[in-house]
């Protein structure tokens, strides 16, 4: 079960792939099947259920295209 999710501003992504190397659960990759508004192949999550909302991808993104949301468990309220 995912602990959170990321939102990617796909059209701002430059496809540098730095984020993909720092994802501890290896769920990010460049999507070779599409190009964005800038002409880059953007990054996508291929297994979002594994996301742990650690934020590493966003922290390493030079273009600030990733927003990270963490789910809050009811029990913790």
């Amino acid at each position, binding site marked *: 079960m995912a602990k*959170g999710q990321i939102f990617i501003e796909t059209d*701002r992504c*430059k*496809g*540098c*792939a*730095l984020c993909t*190397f*720092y994802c501890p659960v290896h769920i990010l990759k460049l999507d070779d099947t599409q190009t964005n508004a800038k002409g*880059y192949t953007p990054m996508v999550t291929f297994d979002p259920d594994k996301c742990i*909302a*650690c*934020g*590493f991808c*966003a*922290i*390493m*993104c*030079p*273009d*600030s*295209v*990733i*927003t*990270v*949301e*963490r*789910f*809050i*468990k*009811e029990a913790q*309220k």
Partner: protein
Amino acid sequence: MPKSKIVYERSEGLSLMDNSYCPGCTHGIIHKLVAESLVELELLERTIGISSVGCSALNYDFFSCDMQQAPHGRAPAVATGIKRVRPNSIIFTYQGDGDLASIGIAEAIHAAHRSENITIVFVNNAIYGMTGGQMSPTTLLGQKTTTSPDGRTKAQGLPLRIAEMMATIPGATYVERVSVHNPQHVAKAKKALKKAFSIQKENKGFTLIEFISTCPVNWGMTPKDAVDWAVDNMIPYYPLGVFKDATVGEEK
């Protein structure tokens, strides 16, 4: 549906405009850190940033605070001029190694010498990125550039260690070298920047944070290889750490 909260988003210290850097260039990470630090310290509205000359010349468009563009190397002088007439503002210069370590070394040293209440964000990627990959004062020995085609030799100068040098200046208050090669170091780098801005806020004098950065294009590498190259080659020569902290023991 479980409740949620946003734990990371684009900083409001950055403008809406996309930065113009090449894919994977760590300039973008450093920009985020400057923006986030200023926002978290609630300093953004009274900040004036000084753009320099180099790849970051256009960054007056990328930050959402007031900005002034400076001639090559003169950012610390421009910053001095502003800070003296606007002492309540927060001033940072954003300079590369060509700008600061070469043409602007006098301005950088003397801003520290006068202990100007400014923060220098020094981005060291060991090369002139903007003008097409020429040798800079921080280019490593053996490193090939367009003006050291056979690799830098001693005859072209041994690479300058700016943080170490600036730390010797009596007027410098805080000097640290950081890197942004992984999330842990990005966090450390942000801590260093926040410390520098806090020191400035308290009028305690000159601060400089040197960032080990990359240039995938002119180094001829993928972004990830460039980061790894910086870790393997730059950090051994340019060790990370605090080189000067004149605020230690001050509270007591």
